[in-house]
């Protein structure tokens, strides 16, 4: 590796991230096709409602495993919350001004930790469990209403936050995206965005 670079993700993490992202996008498109009759043409692309239903269900199974696999990579660190993390959240990571300084962050910043815990883990669990309820629970109004409500609640959180995640990890922070493609980021990037982690790695 070039002396300017730092290993940000393992091959496994990257592979699983893209399984997660692609499965999510398929779920999202078919889900929208089911939710809005005006968007039902989306499911025509997936071969019609019958095939789209099967695709939605089995992609949900892939998504479930993928979410479970992220636990090993991010859960431990996301649960370790420091004083700097609180500061980071209070000034919203400096995103609302051109001059704000970011409090030193570890390998994951506080926003990433919150995104991981609240969206991926919590809403992920809700959307997964409710999905299996809709699929497999007995045909009673009670079960189906519960499943339907929870699935839609979690969906609203996902469609509102995932675009922000995509923006923040691409256009908003030049140099970040390569961490999920090539797996490396520059030392300058690391010092700028994750100075605590940089220190731990011994980057001056």
């Amino acid at each position, binding site marked *: 590796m070039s002396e300017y670079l730092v290993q940000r993700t393992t091959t496994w993490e990257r592979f699983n991230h893209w399984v997660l992202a692609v499965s999510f996008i398929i779920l999202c498109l078919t889900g929208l096709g089911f939710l809005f009759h005006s968007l039902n043409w989306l499911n025509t692309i997936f071969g019609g409602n019958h095939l789209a239903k099967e695709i939605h269900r089995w992609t949900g199974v892939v998504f479930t495993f993928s979410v479970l696999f992220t636990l090993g990579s991010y859960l431990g660190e996301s649960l370790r919350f420091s004083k700097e993390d609180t500061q980071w959240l209070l000034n919203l990571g400096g995103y609302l*001004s051109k001059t704000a300084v970011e409090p030193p962050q570890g390998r994951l910043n506080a926003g990433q930790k919150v995104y991981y815990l609240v969206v991926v883990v919590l809403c992920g669990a809700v959307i997964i469990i409710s999905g299996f309820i809709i699929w497999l629970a007995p045909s009673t109004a009670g079960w189906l209403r519960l499943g339907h*409500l929870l699935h839609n609640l979690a969906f609203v959180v996902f469609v509102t936050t995932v675009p922000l995640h995509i923006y923040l990890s691409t256009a908003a922070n*030049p140099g970040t995206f390569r961490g999920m493609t090539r797996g490396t980021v520059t030392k300058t990037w690391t010092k700028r965005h994750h100075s605590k982690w940089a220190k731990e790695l011994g980057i001056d």
Partner: protein
Amino acid sequence: MAVQEIERQKYISGVDVPYRQKGLLITPELCIGCRGCQTACKEWNKLPGERTHNRGTYENPPDLTPNLYNKIRFVEVETQQGLKWLFISQRCMHCGEAGCMKVCPAPGALYRTPQGAVAFNKDKCIGCRFCLAGCPFNIPRFDSNSKVSKCHLCSDRISNGLPPACAKTCPTGAISYGDRDKLLSLAKASGFKAVYGDKDLGGLGVMFAFREYPSFYGLPDTPGLPSSIVFWKSILKPLALIGLGGAVAAAAAHYITIGPKEPEEGGEQ
């Protein structure tokens, strides 16, 4: 009414059947519990019989099934004059504001016929069972392929000018079929002050002339869409689009105003 006028009415009212023409009026006090309608329905719709066991009541089978669209419910009430039997036909109400149609994700699986019935098309049904979640009356049932089954007001008969099999068979006039307005005035003329389903849920296609409280017969006194479905329809569904659009717009606005966190001076990113 011309098709365009129907479409226009749908659009302005938000209810999909202001134009409903036909319906049933059920007068439980005229029902003698013969279950002729239950049998005629199975006969016309070619629904096979099902083996049940004696539960100590004449009410049989115990509940609607994918092979039973219309069932006479037997209710026993103790009164001062002794035990009283109440009979009521339990089946799809062909709601004007049909919860089943609102939640169905497969357009055309449930559809409104020109006479105002809520009919189904098993070829389009994907078997998700959401229609049961949306129904205020616990009506849809699912066959072995998980496809929807329920009363469709004999849509194949009424579209050809025939009454539904149940109404045709009923020997006492407890089930009568006709123009909805006429049925309503008929009930009022017979001394029923209020008709169940006159205005509820956008007007039910199956209305009831009750002397007792609807709850005696196992129906909600004031029927309405399930609250989770109302919340979903009025809040969550719009929020999904607002949230998605808002997030994309917020990202774009941020990018062109505050802008990205540019690389440090001279730093290689």
